């Protein structure tokens, strides 16, 4: 293609010489032959500006020949009658060559400037896009897309993993197999381009460019080799690899920083957990130990006091058991080791079991009002986990309500999902705390008179979400709280599907 284009420019400059000659033929009656030289100089200037050095030099020589042949007497003959014309030829040639050189250089400069502008625009676009990238994945996508745009063939990006390289971005036509990884690894290890067009493994179909930073190599960019890739685009690609290396490094650093942040957050949580555990576990133990030691050391206690102390110790041991259970469950939710075995369950049975497992002294005199429509469809759930969830919700409803306030449980079908509502008439939750109520260890200031770990609702959320469900809270301060658990129904096989 390049050659064809060159021949085109040469023939065009030749045509310009022909045109100048024809024009000269027309005006030679009015002008001295030496002045016709100007026409040819014009041709050389135009050729130089339009097509560069080669065509301009070519035009210079053609002009001298044409001038000699057509206008220098004897005409239509290369011989020269007046030897003064030799000076004219020399002058024409020298001026033409100098002009062509200057004009061509100017043209090159202009082209270069133009190219630089394109490059600058492209790199500007690239850095603008990179600035909006939030993570490594986005950075890789932007780099890949831009590289693809420059080389107009398929590209791939390789980044180092634990062992060796891994492709982290590929445009659709770039298939990565063992061979591709091998070439990329070579480029990475040698810190030199590899693949087609290089000295290392030139038989492969793509070229692999290491992405260098001052600290080292952050990855490898590969593109399906393209013979037509212009020098300018090659340069662009080079510029892109430099920027890519920096961008990838920055994204990796950001990711690392994020991990450290997470780790800090985890540490903070662990501290909270430790505080919570030491405080919450010790409180019931204090009561138990106190009560038992009184009994052990004091034989003179009247039966009523003895019973009071024993009941206190017994209730506190239940509380301790609940705290330990919640901590275990929370750990399972957190570490993802919560095993969920879902089976179809009868909702009223689940509610019944939950109520049955709440200690009698907690239930106290609270009326429990249950509205579950007859024939309510079965729900897929892990019975014991859902029992814990409902127990936690009910436990809250009971402990934050006045002693004789009713707790209502209602089930209905809303948008093909089971909605199970738990409504109390208790102290409620301040609006500012509502959004944090399912957070681990969060306890509203409003609730601080009532003991608790701040784990119950966090576990509920974990369990409900593991059931593809949702849990919501609505509350009015000093009026009551409503917790809604929404669960999907199982897919019921149509007749004949089994």
């Amino acid at each position, binding site marked *: 293609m390049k050659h064809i284009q060159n021949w085109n420019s040469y023939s065009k400059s030749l045509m310009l010489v022909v045109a100048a000659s024809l024009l000269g033929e027309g005006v030679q009656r009015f002008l001295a032959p030496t002045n016709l030289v100007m026409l040819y100089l014009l041709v050389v200037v135009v050729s130089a500006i339009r097509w560069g050095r080669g065509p301009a030099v070519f035009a210079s020589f053609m002009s001298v020949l044409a001038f000699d042949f057509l206008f220098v007497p004897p005409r239509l003959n290369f011989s020269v009658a007046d030897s003064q014309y030799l000076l004219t030829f020399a002058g024409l040639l020298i001026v033409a060559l100098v002009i062509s050189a200057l004009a061509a250089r100017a043209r090159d400069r202009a082209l270069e400037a133009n190219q630089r502008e394109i490059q600058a625009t492209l790199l500007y676009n690239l850095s603008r896009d990179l600035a909006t990238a939030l993570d490594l994945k986005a950075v890789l996508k932007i780099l890949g897309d831009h590289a693809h745009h420059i080389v107009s063939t398929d590209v791939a990006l390789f980044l180092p993993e634990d062992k060796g390289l891994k492709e982290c971005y590929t445009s659709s036509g770039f298939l990565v197999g063992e061979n591709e990884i091998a070439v990329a690894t070579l480029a990475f290890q040698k810190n030199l381009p590899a693949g087609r067009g290089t000295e290392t493994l030139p038989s492969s179909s793509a070229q692999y460019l290491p992405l260098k930073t001052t600290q080292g190599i952050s990855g490898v960019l590969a593109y399906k080799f393209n013979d037509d890739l212009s020098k300018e685009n090659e340069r662009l690609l080079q510029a892109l690899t430099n920027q890519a290396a920096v961008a990838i490094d920055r994204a990796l650093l950001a990711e690392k920083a994020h991990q450290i942040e997470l780790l800090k957050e985890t540490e903070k949580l662990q501290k909270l957990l430790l505080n919570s555990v030491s405080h919450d576990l010790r409180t019931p133990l204090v009561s138990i130990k106190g009560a038992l030691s009184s009994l052990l050391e004091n034989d003179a206690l009247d039966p009523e006091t003895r019973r009071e102390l024993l009941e206190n110790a*017994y209730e506190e*041991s239940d509380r301790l*058991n609940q705290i330990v*259970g919640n901590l*275990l469950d929370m750990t399972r939710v957190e570490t993802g080791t919560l095993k969920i*075995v879902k*089976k*179809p*369950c*009868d909702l*009223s*049975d689940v*509610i*019944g*079991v939950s*109520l*049955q497992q709440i200690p009698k002294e907690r239930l106290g005199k609270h009326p*429990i009002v*249950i509205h*579950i429509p007859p024939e309510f469809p*079965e729900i897929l759930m892990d*019975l*014991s986990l859902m*029992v814990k969830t409902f127990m936690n919700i009910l436990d809250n409803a009971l402990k934050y309500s006045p002693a004789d306030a009713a707790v209502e449980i209602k089930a209905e079908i809303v948008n093909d999902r089971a909605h199970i509502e738990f409504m109390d008439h208790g102290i409620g939750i301040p609006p500012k705390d509502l959004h944090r109520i399912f957070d681990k260890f969060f306890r509203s200031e409003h609730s601080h008179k009532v003991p608790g770990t701040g784990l119950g609702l966090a576990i509920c959320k974990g369990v409900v979400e593991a059931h593809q469900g949702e849990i919501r809270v609505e509350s009015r301060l000093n009026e009551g709280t409503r917790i809604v658990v929404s669960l999907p129904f199982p897919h019921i096989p149509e007749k004949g599907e089994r």
Partner: protein
Amino acid sequence: MTKPDALRILIVDDEKSIRRFLKTTLHAQGFQVFEAATGQEALQNSVADHPDALILDLGLPDMDGIEVTREIRKRSQIPIVILSVREQEADKIAALDAGADDYLTKPFSSGELLARLRAVMRRLLPQEEAQVLKVGKLTADLSKRIICIKDQPVKLTPTEYDVLKVLVLNSGKVVTHRHLLQAVWNKTEDLEGVAHLLRVTMSNLRSKIETDPNRPFYILTEPGIGYRLRSEP
């Protein structure tokens, strides 16, 4: 304090403090108590000590309680009550399937422990009294096929009656889903596929005998395991 004809209980648990608590509680109730701390000891002592019942922890250092149950069942039908923690659901079912009679989830009260022991040891008593059961307002007379609530006969379908009968015969004891599906529906495989029959029957049965079917008093659900008919008020 222990009478010569007192019932003999073998406690198997590797935690000394738990053995101590069990021993004291059972001793006070007039049982003669023996101890074992490992599975091997349990297997030996279950022969040597001639126990009438076994309290067996699922998590033993040398072998698990399921295995111990299986070994003992090869030669003896003595009642076995499993001790487990809440998270061992699958193990509980495996132990019950292996022949254990009932289970207790740690921590438990001495009241629960004694109720379980009474229920599993009822098997050792003469059978005739098992035919009539009275709990609260429920009377079940299996010899006459009559179920009454507050002396009013309740009309049950044959399946509902069969389910209740199995529970009455095992009153106070846990009855697994598998057990019920086998005894009533004669199912031994694809239990998951027919489990809904049991749930529907149970729901209907409760609506007939329970005052508030949403908060059952007589038939209690043992989550993930089965059901239990209350045998004591």
